[in-house]
């Protein structure tokens, strides 16, 4: 139920404000609705090639419908009495009299001033008389309205836009494909290029070969289910990414095991053998190969194979073929032997990369296999050059020093915190790190211990410190 002040001038004023407000809202709503209707009309007129003669009346209808709908919707919105009262106060300069009167009228305790306020307000409203209270304001859409209207008029007067169906939505006859294809819907036309290519790729797919064979027609029918692996993006494997990161961090933590980048793997005998084999077969014509070079190469491979390789059988076959004049067979045997050589070289290189370029100087190789580049007896720790700085072996770097093995966490004092007071908590009791430099002074410790006992007895050392000092000397004894 609407609140009234029972003062006819005020109630009439409020009713007038409501009417005027609805009118203004309807005007604004009509302009807004007209704008959006005009936008829709532009789309319709752009598609008049598809819609034909109905496009123009449809566009006009949409504009009119938008304006009428907007006006109706805006006019039907509710206007409360307080909104009207505040608008009236603002518009007529009534110093909030109308709003206060209306609010007091809605209260159960209106106060002694209510009647006087209403009478005063009614008298002032009566003096003002009817006049326009709400200024006409245009919405933003009203300023933009000429644009779609002009565009709609231009589209209505000009010939239809060619090819507009390609960017229209599907329900308006568009869809982004050639119109002729849609009007002659053969199976070949209906499928895309990927699906058309499906039978060929199906035949090439090694996995598809194991499946029950389908006819090309079946493949075309199942084109919708076909997955084009060439276009599929590889899925991110986050676990392997993390694992790679962990591996790299682990390598960085072991600095003395990082790959030795100064090593020249290309200068090994194995690489020289490969180069010679490549040069020998680079001519491309087998009848031009020198039998003598081929035999030398095979003999060299035989010599290396005896030192740990597994290609002796192939080399033997090759040598026999050379003796028999079957050079093609000899070359095939050499190729097989070279494949095994390459495999061994790859294993060696990958192992060096992972385990670091600094190879252990003592003990047996990791897998017990022969490594190229090692001299006979290279594993002997007593041989010349086994120790860094001695001998003539440039590949030997000797034993890693203790400095490289140690980390900041292995030096210092290991133990537990002792003491009650905060000052003691920073003290650690326990074993000191192995100080090699301190051993020559071990004989002096007894003298210093006696001095310590004298000092504890003579000086005013706090009692809490006595045991701590003695603990320190005890820890020196343990080393």
């Amino acid at each position: 139920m609407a609140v009234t002040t029972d003062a006819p001038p005020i109630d009439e004023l409020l009713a007038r404000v409501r009417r005027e407000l609805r009118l203004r809202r309807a005007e604004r709503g009509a302009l807004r609705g007209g704008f959006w209707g005009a936008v829709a009309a532009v789309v319709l007129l752009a598609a008049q090639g598809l819609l034909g003669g109905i496009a123009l009346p449809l566009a006009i209808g949409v504009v009119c419908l938008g304006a009428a709908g907007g006006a109706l919707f805006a006019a039907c919105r509710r206007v409360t009495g307080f909104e009207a009262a505040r608008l009236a106060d603002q518009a007529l300069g009534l110093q909030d009299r109308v709003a206060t009167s209306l609010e007091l009228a809605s209260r159960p305790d209106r106060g002694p001033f209510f009647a006087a306020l209403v009478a005063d307000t009614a008298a002032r409203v009566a003096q003002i008389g009817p006049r326009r209270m709400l200024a006409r304001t245009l919405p933003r859409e009203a300023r933009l309205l000429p644009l779609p209207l002009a565009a709609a008029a231009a589209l209505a007067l000009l010939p239809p836009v060619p090819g507009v169906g390609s960017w229209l939505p599907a329900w308006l006859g568009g869809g982004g494909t050639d119109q002729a294809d849609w009007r002659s819907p053969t199976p070949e036309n209906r499928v895309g290029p990927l699906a058309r290519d499906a039978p060929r790729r199906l035949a090439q797919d090694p996995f598809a070969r194991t499946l029950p064979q389908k006819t090309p027609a079946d493949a075309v029918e199942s084109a919708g289910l076909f997955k084009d692996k060439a276009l599929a993006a590889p899925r991110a494997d986050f676990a392997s990414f993390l694992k790679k990161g962990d591996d790299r961090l682990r390598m960085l933590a072991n600095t003395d095991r990082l790959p030795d980048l100064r090593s020249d793997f290309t200068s090994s005998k194995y690489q020289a053998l490969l180069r010679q084999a490549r040069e020998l077969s680079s001519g491309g014509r087998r009848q031009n190969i020198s039998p003598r070079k081929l035999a030398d190469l095979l003999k060299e491979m035989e010599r290396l194979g005896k030192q740990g390789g597994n290609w002796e059988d192939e080399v033997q076959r090759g040598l026999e073929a050379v003796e028999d004049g079957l050079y093609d067979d000899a070359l095939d045997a050499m190729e097989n032997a070279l494949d095994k050589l390459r495999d061994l070289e790859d294993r060696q290189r990958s192992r060096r990369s992972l385990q670091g370029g600094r190879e252990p100087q003592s003990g047996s190789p990791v897998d017990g296999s022969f490594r190229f580049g090692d001299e006979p007896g290279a594993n002997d720790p007593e041989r010349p050059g086994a120790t860094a700085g001695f001998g003539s072996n440039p590949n030997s770097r000797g034993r890693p020093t203790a400095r490289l093995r140690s980390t900041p966490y292995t030096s210092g004092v290991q133990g537990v915190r002792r003491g009650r007071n905060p000052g003691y908590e920073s003290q650690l009791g326990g074993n000191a790190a192995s100080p090699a430099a301190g051993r020559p002074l071990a004989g002096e410790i007894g003298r210093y211990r006696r001095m310590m006992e004298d000092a504890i007895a003579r000086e005013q050392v706090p009692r809490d410190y006595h045991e701590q000092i003695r603990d320190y000397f005890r820890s020196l004894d343990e080393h």
Partner: protein
Amino acid sequence: MSPQDQVGAFVRAYAALRAEIAKVIVGHGEIIDGVLTALFADGHVLLEGVPGVGKTLLVKTLAETLDLSLARVQFTPDLMPADIVGTNLLVEDQEGRKTFQFQPGPIFAHIVLADEVNRATPKTQSALLEGMQEHAVTVGGASRHLPTPFFVLATQNPIEMEGTYPLPEAQLDRFMFKLRVRYPAIEELNAILDRTTQAHAAAVERVLDAPAVLRFREVVREVPIASHVRDFATRLVMATHPQWEHAPAATRSYVRYGASPRGAQALVLGAKVRALTEGRYNVSMDDIRALAAPALRHRVILNFAGESEAIDPDTLIAELVQTAHAAAARTVEPVLR
């Protein structure tokens, strides 16, 4: 007596008071309105101005137009609280018995003029605290009521900082308005010379007595205020608080502490008096806007940035009023959409 009669009587009395004061005081219309508004709103006024602009004369003239007692206290550094509130003296009666007798201080008057209030120490300034808020003072464990109406008018000099003690925030907050007495314009200065250098001084008549003032104070409190006007006052006071979530940027940048609820009370009560002086039966947003500066300027405590950049509280409050008014207008604008 009908509300129309009450309001009519108030308007007439106010106009008469103003006219009588104007016989002596030249110009300063805003200051006179502010003082009278605080008088009828049961508040106190801090007058700030350079020496010689008529602050003390204004208070004395006001006391003459009202049939009220006036006590003037010249605040000095050696003034003690007992000099203001009074003390118990050992007196001997006719029979020779010695008893303590309370000797009331100058605070026991209707109108107390605390002249140059910032020259006394904060301890002495604080002697006014209880009286201004509770209208009573406690001496020797006994609470004694002050006469009603009780109206404190304090003056201070803004330019003389040597040997002064700035009023503490608690003391400042008890003043309803802080009015800045500006230097007179050239026409006003001529009029002052004409009036004060003649042989005969202007005579001032008494217009109101204490009961009339108290009756008008009751009428003031009957003036209704609409909720949106009250919300405007509340938003304005809250806008002085940097901690408020909707505080303007200026407040966040330059204000350390905002106005207290007493500031909002001062705004609304002052607005009610202003509405009555215009013969209105309701408070409008214009009333709140007009009284924002005198009611809030001494309640807004600037921070270091505000002090260092010499931000004027009046400028800040004007910006806050504008912001709050725009926010209030925004509540009506959507109606048109």
